[in-house]
């Protein structure tokens, strides 16, 4: 009798030991295709932890480069969350995703204009290529 109970108990222990571990209770288990880590946003910056790992940002710090904008806002705004000097313009002008993909060929008609970065009225450095999805009318003027 006791041998049967011991055998049954050992069977249960062995069976439980062989079940897959699913620490987050998402029924997917903890290995292979488990997406639990990708669904976690530890620092609440709008980016999932695995996104942060691929971007090189800190999953535990909402503003990795310390420029005042969260990593999620920087990604949404097409700025670099690892560069404290790269952030949204205070003037509110949108930065296009294509800005770093524009290849300049020259400044004549039909060519692709060279980029520039100049101080604006809010103290930001504004790049021409930030507006690569728009038509841009450049007006040269002076105070005198």
């Amino acid at each position, binding site marked *: 009798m006791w041998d049967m109970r011991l055998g049954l108990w050992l069977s249960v222990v062995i069976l439980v030991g062989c079940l897959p571990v699913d620490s987050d209770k998402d029924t997917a288990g903890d290995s292979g295709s488990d997406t639990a880590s990708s669904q976690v946003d530890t620092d609440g910056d709008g980016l999932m932890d695995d996104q942060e790992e691929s971007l090189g940002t800190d999953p535990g710090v909402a503003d990795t480069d310390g420029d005042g904008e969260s990593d999620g806002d920087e990604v949404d705004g097409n700025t670099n969350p690892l560069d404290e000097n790269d952030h949204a*313009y205070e*003037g509110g*002008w949108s930065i296009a995703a*294509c800005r770093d993909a*524009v290849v*300049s060929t*020259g*400044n*004549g*008609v*039909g*060519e*692709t*204009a*060279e980029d*520039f970065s*100049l*101080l*604006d*009225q*809010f*103290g930001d450095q*504004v790049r*021409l*290529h930030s*507006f*690569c*999805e*728009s*038509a*841009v*009318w*450049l*007006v*040269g*003027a*002076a*105070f*005198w």
Partner: protein
Amino acid sequence: MVITLLTENYEMVPPNQEELALWADEYQQTFPVLSDGDPVALRFTARGSLSLPSHTLIGPGGEVLIADGDVTEEDILAALP
């Protein structure tokens, strides 16, 4: 997008941020007003000198449509994406 490139202030030097802000307020500029000490506006003229005001129109993707020339409303409308 309209970008104003201010090449010089009254002292013939590139304007600082405060001067840019004053200019933007005075002329109710809601777009970028930039201090252009380079000046980059000169890049778009083949004359080698800059006449002010200068006008250059750039299309989406960065293509120069009009380099230091007359920009009309029709030109702008045609350039819009």
